[in-house]
């Protein structure tokens, strides 16, 4: 890969709105900005319904039909992919430069195809390699993610959950993309399997030239991979920070509350919880979207807060203006 920019991925004012019913508009992704460096992992943290999966789909342009608005910039290694037409995007970007491990990936494998062939398929489709070469490549990826060689000829139902998850990761890796988006990669797995998968991801990050976007609601496990953390709330990114300082002390009140809600195994502090519910994305409030649940809200919060930069961390909150 030739570096044509200082950042691998730049997302500028990305918007994805869905149509519902006759007049309703769900503002799932509502003006998202963040950057991702080379060989870096960013974690997108958020509760269910905050738009984090829609963000992944907007980045990879995997869109349903009921789109109301899709705009902004997704600049990958200096190239604005939003300017491409669908066919070029499919041929040159998706699964070539960016791939994805979807949510519940272990259940998304084709039940009537051997896993090895499934993992090899993107190579055949995208680089026109012969099936033998593709299978060879797949075998290499299986070794990377820790699936024993004999599993390559098996069907998905013959594999355990952890093995299926590893195969899905191998499938995303096989074309050697610059960026992999992982959507809740371990949420359906057991603790030991989960820890094993994170060991695999760390290994890939150290050995290969790959960046990650990890989408999750689980703060504790997200710290296993994060270089950078982006906190999402009601369709917007409210804080972006390096992992070191974020896990030490988050800035945004929502991030603070979220961090305080994590039960810790050996600490004696009582975990806290956030009163109320996130706003509806059909009709989000004007002003700060967290204001209604925020313990530190004041007069200014009725207006939309600006995005402020503090020592390289960005935070969208009136407290830091």
């Amino acid at each position, binding site marked *: 890969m030739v570096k044509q920019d200082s950042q691998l991925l730049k997302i500028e004012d990305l918007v994805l709105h869905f149509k519902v019913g006759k007049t309703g508009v769900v503002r799932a992704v509502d003006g998202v900005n963040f950057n991702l460096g080379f060989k870096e*992992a960013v974690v997108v943290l958020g*509760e*269910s319904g905050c738009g984090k999966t829609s963000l992944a789909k907007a980045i990879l342009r995997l869109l349903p039909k009921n789109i109301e608005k899709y705009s902004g910039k997704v600049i990958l290694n200096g190239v604005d992919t939003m300017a491409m037409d669908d066919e070029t995007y499919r041929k040159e970007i998706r699964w070539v430069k960016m791939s994805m491990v979807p949510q519940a990936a272990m259940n998304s494998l084709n039940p009537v195809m051997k896993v090895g062939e499934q993992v090899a398929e993107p190579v055949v489709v995208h680089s026109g390699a012969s099936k033998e070469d593709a299978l060879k490549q797949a075998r290499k990826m299986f070794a990377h993610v*820790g699936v024993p060689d004999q599993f390559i000829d098996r069907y998905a139902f013959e594999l*355990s959950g*952890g093995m299926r998850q590893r195969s899905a990761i191998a499938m995303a890796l096989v074309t050697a993309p610059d960026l992999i988006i992982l959507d809740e990669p371990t949420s359906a797995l*057991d*603790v*030991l*399997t*989960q*820890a*094993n998968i*994170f*060991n695999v991801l*760390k*290994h890939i990050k150290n050995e290969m030239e790959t960046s990650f976007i990890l989408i999750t*609601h*689980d*703060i*504790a*496990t*997200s*710290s*296993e*991979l*994060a*270089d950078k953390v982006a906190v999402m709330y009601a369709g917007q990114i409210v804080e972006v920070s390096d*992992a*070191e300082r*974020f*896990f*030490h002390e988050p800035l945004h009140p929502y991030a603070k*509350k*979220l*961090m305080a*809600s*994590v*039960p*810790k*195994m*050996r*600490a004696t502090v009582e*975990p*806290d*919880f*956030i009163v109320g*519910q996130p706003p509806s994305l059909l009709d989000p409030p004007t002003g700060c979207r967290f204001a209604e649940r925020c313990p530190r809200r004041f007069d200014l919060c009725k207006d939309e807060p600006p995005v402020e930069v503090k020592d390289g961390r960005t935070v969208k909150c009136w407290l830091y203006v």
Partner: protein
Amino acid sequence: MAKTKSNAISVVEEATPVETMNLHADKLLSIQDLHVWFELRKFGFGHAGYVHAVDGVNFDLAKGESIAVVGESGCGKSSLMKTILGINKPIKGRVVFNGKDISKMEPKDLKWYRSQVGYIQQDPYGAMPPFMDVTRILSEPMIINSKSTPEERDERIKKVLEEVKVFPIEDFLPKFPHMLSGGQQQRIVIARAMVLEPKLIVADEPVSMLDASVRVEILNLLRNLQEKYNLGVIYITHDLSTVRYFSRRIFVMYAGKVVEQAKVHDLLFNPSHPYTLALLAATSDPDAANAKVYKDIPTGEPPSLITPPPGCRFHPRCPRKIAGLCEVEVPPDFEINPEHKVACWLYK
């Protein structure tokens, strides 16, 4: 290949008079040498072995005590729970509630038993019939298990909704499950478990499907209810970081057996079984330093419960295996202190 059919089988043992069993005043539930096996069928009728889901589990639960059963999926914790609820029949061993063996109960007693045990399911949405509103969901247990007038039922429903803190109550009564958020759904499921005023609550991963910010709220609610009504609670989970918040003792299960049992504090700070150590190592607290190190945990998968490994069931994955012993003999429970037992040869 053998076709799996999950019909629990029961084998009649030598008769034990129901009354003579340990009638301790403070003992609510006692599990004695419980084995739950599921028969595998070949072509629908031939016998093809058993799935040894629960293989010799013993414990007592005092009145108002709360315990946690921790283990990975497939370790038999749900089979154990279903046997306690009377859904599965044990092949060997007993579940004794208030001095009565539940597998020997008459239908009338079973009805009483079901009113004494509340069940909180893992997936609140899947646990509620989508075509029933909240009023109907909450009155159903009372219609089936108790003689009550509609007025009494309405009163009880209001009271129980107050207990689980859904306000305003009148707004919730006509709602259907899909109109509620995840946290509210789980509250209704808890209300349903509480509606018959049970003495024992079995909670199967009650918070694993909820968002982080709601999880703690639901755990607090459960703990308050437990303290207020002096309930026995069996909390089943795979998440060690939440057990501390309302359990006194932990039982760690692996492949159908309890491998370690201890008080919560003792288990978290002085874990003994290699499997418990692995579980603790795999559970992370949020810390940026996590990203820089690989986790030291055994690879591999839990064994098949159809042909469990001989000796200690953890030995194929165990980093501290004693050759010639662990793969031959089943380790008995060794006592570390009176309330801390571990089934591992390292503590011989």
